[in-house]
């Protein structure tokens, strides 16, 4: 192989944006191709929330009285969907840690590609995976008795909110994956922050049943605001106050963790 071509001249801004988009799409297509080849990766993402739906619907659900029309299954599904979106970010953190260890990120960083593309490509692909999983859980929910009671528009809005919320968590996960850089530690750390946030919230039980000190946490953390908004969108009821709080939290998470993730990517060694 003879190196004949001269290095290309530095590109202008418009060109850089175009390449940034193109690199992001190439890298997210790479992930989609991987999932196409090894569907097991997707199946595992789906199995856990499906088991949770069945477990809470048929095992625990009967013992949990809830203040919503339609009973526990109506209460449960928006909560499970929010948790599904949050748990989907395990994959974001683990894959980035793996790529770091295998030298894939070194290879990409040593190439003349957009500096943001590895992160954005990951986030775009994982958003796709998240949407697929959420839609499947809605389907499973319908099979076990869940119904949207508030019309199609708010139903779509609920899925969109869950996804945007999930992507904000994916930024946190990307930061942890790149900063910790070891697959198993990343996974363990994911448990530490994702379990309390999703379980100590309004996702599975009414917060009023928790002890007072726990209510203080559950009432003021983002998952509760997001789940309450999603529930109102799905079943009807006041939306606005919780929606603004949700969006404020989501925006705050983006503002803090996206730069942190970018910095961790730059420094990743």
């Amino acid at each position, binding site marked *: *192989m*003879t*190196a*004949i*071509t*001269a*290095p*290309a001249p*530095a590109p202008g801004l418009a060109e850089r944006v175009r*390449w940034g988009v*193109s*690199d992001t799409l*190439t*890298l997210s*297509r*790479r992930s989609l*191709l*991987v999932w196409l*080849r*090894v569907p097991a990766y997707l199946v595992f993402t789906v199995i856990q929330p499906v088991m949770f739906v069945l477990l809470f619907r048929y095992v625990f659900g009967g013992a949990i009285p809830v203040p919503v029309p339609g009973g526990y299954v109506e209460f449960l599904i928006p909560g499970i969907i929010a948790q599904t979106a949050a748990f989907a970010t395990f994959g974001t953190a683990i894959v980035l840690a793996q790529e770091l*260890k*295998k*030298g*894939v990120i*070194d*290879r*990409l*960083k*040593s*190439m*003349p*590609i957009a500096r943001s*593309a590895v992160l954005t490509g990951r986030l775009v692909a994982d958003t796709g995976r998240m949407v697929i999983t959420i839609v499947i859980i809605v389907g499973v929910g319908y099979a076990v008795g869940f119904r949207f009671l508030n019309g199609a528009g708010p139903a779509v809005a609920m899925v969109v909110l869950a996804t945007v919320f999930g992507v904000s968590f994916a930024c946190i996960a990307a930061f942890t994956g790149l900063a910790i850089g070891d697959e198993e530690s990343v996974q363990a750390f994911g448990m530490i922050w994702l379990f309390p946030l999703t379980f100590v919230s309004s996702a599975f039980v009414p917060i009023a049943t928790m002890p007072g000190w726990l209510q203080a946490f559950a009432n003021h953390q983002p998952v509760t605001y997001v789940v309450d908004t999603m529930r109102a969108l799905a079943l009807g009821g006041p939306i606005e106050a919780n929606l603004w709080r949700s969006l404020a939290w989501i925006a705050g998470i983006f503002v803090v963790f996206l730069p942190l993730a970018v910095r961790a990517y730059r420094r990743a*060694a």
Partner: protein
Amino acid sequence: MPANTGGPAILVEGLTKSFGQVHALRGIDLSVPRGTVLGVLGPNGAGKTTMVRILTTLLPPDGGRAAVEGRDVVREAAAVRRSIGLAGQSAAIQEELTGRENLEIIARLYHLSRATARSRAAALLEQFGLADAANRPAKTYSGGMQRRLDLAASLVGQPRVLFLDEPTTGLDPRSRLGMWDVIRSLAAGGTTLLLTTQYLDEADELADEIVVIDQGQVIAAGTSEELKNRVGGDVIEFTVPDRGRIPEAVAAIAPIGEGEPHADTETGVVNVGVGGGGSDALIEAVRGLDAAGVVTRGLALRRPSLDDVFLALTGHAAEEDGQPAGRGRAGRGRRRSSGGEREEEKVRTAS
């Protein structure tokens, strides 16, 4: 591109880098002419990978400067990235995807058209003997095939300067030879190559020039021949099957040698430089060992290898510490490794 005309392909001046208390690089200088192969030789932890990471823009240096193709690796990092290729210590490939898909994705990231990406991937697969396996997932490849695919991926952008960080570490001997052939053909094609290795025979085999790095410093530089001449003359080498008798064997040959004998307690290999003594020294060695009653195997006189050079060079460094070689290194959390994975320990005679 005025910066690209003339001058060395890689220029490094006074490069330093520390990680906390660890001084990975302590003032490295080197210059690699275009179209040549530089072998960077050193044990684990010598600073080889740190240097490669700085030269490939992955890590900023603390001090000094480095330029690739006349472009500064810090201030003109983007330009440097357009002219380099990197194959790291592990195969940075997507194992779930086929060899062809791996290369096509990299080609697309270099903004080649679909058709060009396809043809470049096909050409590289052919060149690296992977055409038959092109449509199989890379996880079904052998270790050697994965490393070849990784090397092919580093060439997709047709780099002028290629960095290979320990390209054969972890490969079986046959795959290693295959890799050598591939690297030789790249060098013959005019690509400037910087390859790091712990294997002395590898540097000997592939590099035009060799720099020996230890503890973040260049401790020797030159052609393989020049380095061997620094050891000065021939080497007597043999194996002691009964490891317990190594000290006696060392004592027996110590008077013959020009320097101190070296012994590897794990493999039982003992050697000593004998200068121009040649066959007379060999006869003396046989007598000495026979008198000591030590059974040996494969006693022979040979030209010095880079192994000898390395031990001679780092041996001096260890002596300056006033500590036994093995111990002094271990004390600083470093591992003395030479000629592969085995621990090397210098057995000293009465001093």
